[in-house]
């Protein structure tokens, strides 16, 4: 115990000193993200994309602190306290999951710290709880589902069968889909258990229905399991979904079962613009793999911060906020601007999964599902 006390006091003193030594003009960014356990490939890609942008900027006055939240809301909250109260960061970013964002963001932004979301976009933060210090650089959670609803209507599909896990992001997904799909009648609507990995019963229901297509939102391992089992079931209906079940890493795990699936994304690695081409090339060179949309979001988030730092230091909060709002940076996804609730207005693309050069499945850009898409919660935001 004595040792423990000594360690504790030592820590107290060393951090006390550290805060005196901090330079006034240096910018400190705290990144809380998921690096361990299931689903950690999202956090790893966000981190790698973010770091790549910082390296390419060549600035040495930015300090990036990274910590793992193990996908637990209270750990994330504790890390946020640590970053703000002990390390005195100016900007926080990195959270992957909506439930962690809800635990961290509302209190963080009220303390005057900027938070830039590289992934999660729960509806409350876009509407009721929007805040001047909160910026979402990815999407509002419903965007990709809404876009898919619109696209499936355009494609003339009359009887889609839709399914998602029974939790807020899942109900948002199906509601979002239905809000933009009016091209026919649903063949069925199923909520599955969160974390469920066997979909035999659901696939049997799809087979028994008279559906002409399937829309599903099953992120991570759930989507891998569903796609493989659907492929093996002998049901031959086209599959549609948001990009979350079809990033390059998940495609590697699903294998050829994913070929032919159509998905919506705000970004694609074969999107034809110079920023994106340079990003994909340098990411492959640095990390030896094709970036996912999460990596592109991390990269864009860092570049947005860098662009705003050209104008102002976060200590000058109003000027820095204005600079962020201007979104004056070259994004990897083409044209990008913020709505009044600080959520993106951007094109949502359609991709399809094809067999790549080495037989491995990969995404190919097909076209645009919805142009200049904005979230539907913007009117609830009083800002």
């Amino acid at each position, binding site marked *: 115990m004595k040792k423990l006390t000594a360690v504790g006091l030592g820590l107290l003193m060393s951090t006390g000193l550290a805060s005196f030594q901090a330079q006034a003009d240096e910018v400190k960014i705290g990144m809380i993200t998921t690096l361990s356990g299931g689903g950690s490939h999202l956090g790893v890609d966000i981190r790698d994309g973010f770091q790549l942008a910082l390296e390419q900027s060549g600035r040495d006055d930015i300090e990036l602190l990274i910590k793992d939240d193990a996908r637990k809301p209270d750990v994330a909250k504790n890390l946020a306290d640590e970053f703000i109260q002990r390390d005195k960061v100016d900007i926080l970013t990195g959270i992957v999951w909506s439930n962690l964002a809800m635990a961290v963001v509302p209190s963080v932004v009220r303390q005057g710290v900027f938070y830039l979301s590289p992934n999660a976009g729960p509806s409350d933060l876009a509407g009721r709880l929007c805040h001047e210090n909160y910026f979402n650089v990815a999407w509002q959670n419903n965007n990709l589902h809404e876009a898919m609803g619109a696209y499936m209507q355009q494609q003339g599909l009359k009887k889609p069968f839709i399914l998602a896990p029974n939790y807020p992001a899942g109900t948002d997904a199906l509601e979002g889909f239905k809000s933009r799909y009016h091209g026919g009648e649903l063949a069925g609507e199923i909520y599955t258990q969160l974390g469920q990995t066997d979909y035999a019963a659901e696939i049997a229901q799809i087979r028994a229905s008279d559906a002409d297509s399937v829309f599903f939102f099953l992120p991570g391992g759930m989507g891998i399991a569903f796609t493989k089992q659907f492929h093996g079931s002998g049901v031959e209906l086209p599959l549609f979904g948001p990009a979350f079940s079809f990033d390059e890493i*998940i495609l590697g795990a699903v294998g050829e079962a994913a070929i032919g699936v159509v998905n919506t994304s705000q970004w694609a690695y074969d999107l034809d613009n110079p920023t994106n081409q340079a990003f994909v090339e340098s990411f492959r060179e640095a990390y030896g793999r094709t970036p996912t949309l999460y990596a592109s979001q991390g990269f864009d988030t860092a570049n947005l911060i860098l662009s705003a730092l050209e104008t102002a230091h976060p200590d000058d909060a109003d000027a820095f906020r204005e600079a962020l709002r201007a979104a004056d940076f070259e994004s990897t996804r083409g044209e990008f601007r913020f709505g009044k609730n600080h959520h993106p207005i951007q094109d949502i693309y359609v991709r399809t999964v094809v067999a790549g050069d080495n037989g491995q499945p990969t995404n190919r850009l097909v076209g645009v599902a919805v142009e200049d898409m904005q979230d539907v919660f913007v009117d609830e935001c009083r800002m």
Partner: protein
Amino acid sequence: MTLSLLFEQLLNGLQLGTMLFLMASGLTLVFGVMGLINLAHGSFYMVGAFVTAWTAGTTGSFWVGLGAGILAAAAVGAVVELLVIRRLYHRQHLDQVLATFALILIFSEGTRWLFGSSPLWLNVPEALSGAVALPGGSRYPVFRLVIIAVGVLVAVALFLLISRTRLGMRIRAGESDREMIGALGIDIAKLYTLVFALGAALAGLAGSMIGALQSVQVGMGEPVLILAFVVIVIGGIGSIKGALIGSLLVGLVDTLGRVFLPSLFKLFMTPAEASGVGAALASMLIYVLMAIILAFKPKGLFAAND
């Protein structure tokens, strides 16, 4: 709901049940013989799946991968027994829970260290892919039928092993009186290692087969572990027969609950609401089943010994 769809859903319940049996039989065997609660049983499932996926990816053959996965799970089981588990036999359940909880953390993060954060690729072997026609016009994946067959084979083999062989005799002796088998001059240490490795191998087998259907990723063993515990508690801890009945019961109740509860609520709710409420209740169903059974039969359906 047509008869053929009902039949298909019953098959699905059966398949989930046999998969659970592969996990639960090892768990209950280890408890019956050694009196050990092993939370790390799901880790052997994960080890089996990862080694199978890695080997299949390297050699291109699912079958080589399957063999490697089972062997690796058995070997890891034996090593864990020698290093850690055997120090726990004489401890309280509480110490066993903590130590094996620690093993979960070590295995999950160790696996991530070795194989990385991304889920691995593993598919159903070419020969067993595709679907066959069921009576009534529906189609059913071949691989799922194979899983059912493997589950039945394992159940039969376990019954024969326990009732007909020398090893089985010792296991039965160990279940009824732990001190006595020492007195009979049987090398208990070796027996325990063997039983533990056997349980791990069964978990590895389940992980390899299920990995081909689902996602091979870190943490995949935990949901299955909880289900397997529900199974053995319902069946009566230590009883292979109980594990079999419990597995089928849980498999069928879970599958049919997921299918029928939402339809039931659709009678008096909008489809979206019914689907949500039905799914919520379906996810609680097996725990309700377990609580009801234990409320009336506090030692499960086929209690062996506690």
